[in-house]
């Protein structure tokens, strides 16, 4: 199994009360559901440091051809080998578009256009090392927001049957974190004025339990450079200069899956999120 960054201490506030509450759920109860209320690209901050995963199980530097010469980052706990090359692309992208990409993603979450949900089956006993069925899906509905301008917890949504669904049969409980891989998911993201699909490949997801119905986590994986280029090509209104600039950035920052010629075909991307409890209509 690929090595993951361990849980950050400041995220692992899994209180006894929350454990108790989860333990209250009867055996065989229905899955626990959460919806992502905040979603954003993990940034490189400070320089050389990012939340993320060692996706390729190697610690790359400028000379590592296996990582196409893109140096890996460290996570906030100082662990090396973190792959999140997209973090260095994001500022350029935002400068190019002139709009904060993060804000666009959050707007999509708040409007209900991007209701990313987790269905966790077998969470109730919270036994370390136990297998939890983890499904990643999308919901539909018009969420209500709280005064913090984020989705309120406890809301009920419909399943979006047209959106992709990814199931991990055995996500593992470690400490206060649920870890699952391989994680693959296609996310619709508004980068310019249109949505483009970003397919995360061969990734990892971690969900930390913060309290009753409160979660924080991260997921990452590789995104095909060619897919991004193809998507960009279909968007009207993107000038040749911008498209060329993005192509260049992607080519120079791709850090995963080198082909026979040593050219990396994927760029590593990491998202961070917070999630709150949610429900799905049964029918």
């Amino acid at each position, binding site marked *: 199994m690929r090595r993951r960054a361990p849980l950050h201490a400041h995220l692992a506030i899994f209180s006894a009360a929350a454990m108790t509450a989860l333990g209250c759920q009867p055996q065989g109860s229905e899955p626990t559901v959460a919806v992502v209320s905040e979603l954003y690209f993990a940034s490189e901050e400070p320089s050389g440091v990012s939340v993320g995963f060692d996706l390729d199980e190697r610690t790359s530097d400028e000379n590592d051809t296996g990582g196409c010469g893109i140096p890996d980052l460290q996570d906030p706990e100082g662990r090396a080998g973190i792959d999140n090359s997209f973090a260095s692309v994001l500022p350029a992208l935002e400068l190019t578009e002139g709009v904060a990409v993060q804000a666009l993603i959050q707007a999509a979450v708040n409007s209900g256009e991007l209701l990313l949900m987790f269905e966790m089956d077998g969470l109730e006993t919270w036994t370390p090392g136990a297998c939890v069925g983890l499904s990643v899906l999308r919901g539909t509905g018009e969420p209500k927001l709280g005064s913090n301008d984020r989705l309120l917890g*406890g809301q009920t949504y419909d399943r979006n049957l047209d959106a992709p669904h990814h199931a991990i049969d055995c996500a593992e409980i470690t400490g206060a974190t649920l870890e699952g891989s391989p994680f693959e998911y296609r996310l619709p993201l508004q980068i310019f004025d249109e949505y483009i699909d970003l397919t995360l490949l061969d990734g990892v997801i971690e969900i930390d339990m913060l*309290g009753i119905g409160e979660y924080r986590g991260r997921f990452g994986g590789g995104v095909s450079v060619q897919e991004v280029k193809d998507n960009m090509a279909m968007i009207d209104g993107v000038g040749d200069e911008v498209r060329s600039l993005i192509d260049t950035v992607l080519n120079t920052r791709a850090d995963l899956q080198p082909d026979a010629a040593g050219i990396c075909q994927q760029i590593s991307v990491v998202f961070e999120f917070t999630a709150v409890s949610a*429900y799905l209509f049964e029918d």
Partner: protein
Amino acid sequence: MRLSGPAVALLALTLLAGCPQPMPDITPEPPVLRRLTAAQFHNTIGDLLGDDLYIPEGLEPDLRAGGLLEVGASKAALSPRGTENFEQAAYVLAEQAMAEDRRGALVPCTPTGPVDSACAETFVSEFGRRAWRRPLTDDEVQRLTGVADQGASTLGDFYGGLEFALAGLLLAPEFLYRIELGEADPTGAWARRYSDYEMASRLSFLLWNSTPDDELLDAAERGELTQEQGLRVQLERLLTSPRSREGLRAWFADFLQLADLDDLYKETSVFMHMSDTLGASAREETLLTFETLALEEAGDLRDLLTTRRTFINRELAALYDMRAPARDGFAEAALDPDRPRRGLLGQASFLSLHAHPVSSSPTLRGRFLREVLLCQDLPGALADVDTSIPPVSEEARTLRERVQRHLEDPSCGGCHRLMDLPGLGLEHFDGIGRYRASEEGVAIDASGELDGIQFDDASGLASAIHDHPDFIPCAVQTFVRYATGVEERQDQQDGLDWLSDQFALRKHLVAELVEDLVTSPLFRQAGTISEEASP
């Protein structure tokens, strides 16, 4: 035919239930004038003129007295500003009612010209009887017909003239107040009784929260409502009408002071689920619970405290952190049997109303339980006592720990123990009713005590209120106050006790309580008019 032993027993029980001992003699309350509450004004206008009229709101605020708006209505004067508002509203309503597309349904004759006294008189007589809930005297008819004629003559428009007469009817004290003064009882059974038309009004506002319909007024005209048989016929008609749900919901809303949810204020930075619609949603949950379980399914009133069934919409489902039972509107949902939330005390209406804008309040919740659900008197806070709760500190992080100061202070503890010890049982719910397992990182201790009954959490508290010997007498007392508009006197206690006993015999069914009260002297017998009784 020989009856079996069980059949005989059943027959005996049936006969006993059907022929209860009569209510002991009581000294009746002096009659009062009750101003229509805002809801009654709205409903009455709807019944008289149509549901789709624009009805101005906020004409004069309702007043709560004796715990009820309905008692406040008998103490509420009309302010100069309120008088102006009602006058303005009367003209607004009259103008709409006499609009070309509507007046045909209201005016029973076709005018022969701009001035048609006979037609105007017919309208004034017929509509006036419904508006004033009694026939108008000849003088009243002539005066209002004169107003209509004069207006019609000046405007050259019959219906323009009728607008003035209609506005006059709607502006009159006979419309805005329920004038139920009683009359000498010609049968000699009592000294005074409420007249047939007054009984029509009392029945209709109690059961429909609105003005009597023509059938009820006709029964009054026939003298049937001062006779027990006739009264029972109309009582059954009104009770079996779907409209009785609305009327009895109004009682329950007044009982639990749910009108205050209109002004619910919570700090949204503290309570993320607070919204402009939460108060209305919370009220509807409570009223649907009452309507469905106590009225439609004829359940025991006490079981509203302990039921795991509730009726919520998506907003409340999110607040309670449970799956919404329906995509739109309200629907029934089952509360988790392993959680402390159940019954009325677990509903957002009660939990949010009796809390502070930024926190829960064991004191406010305990006070409501004592004063409103159990009708117990509590002393007020002493004027020179610091009632503030200490801020969160290392030593006192939970509200339980912080209110401990009140409990230990000799000048506060006696009263605060009465309120806080039951109120602490609801600490699993924050200031708007969302469940919480901990506060400031400390697991909530929701244990408490109510009149010698220890409990572990809100579920146990619900059981303690359900079984409390004061709950049913309190509900009965509140219902009698609501029906009569006055606070009971000490020498009526025997009558209230009789009603409570009957209520218990009849398994605490609300419809039975209504019947027992309406047919009793408490509702039918009028006292001597007191100058102090009304504004």
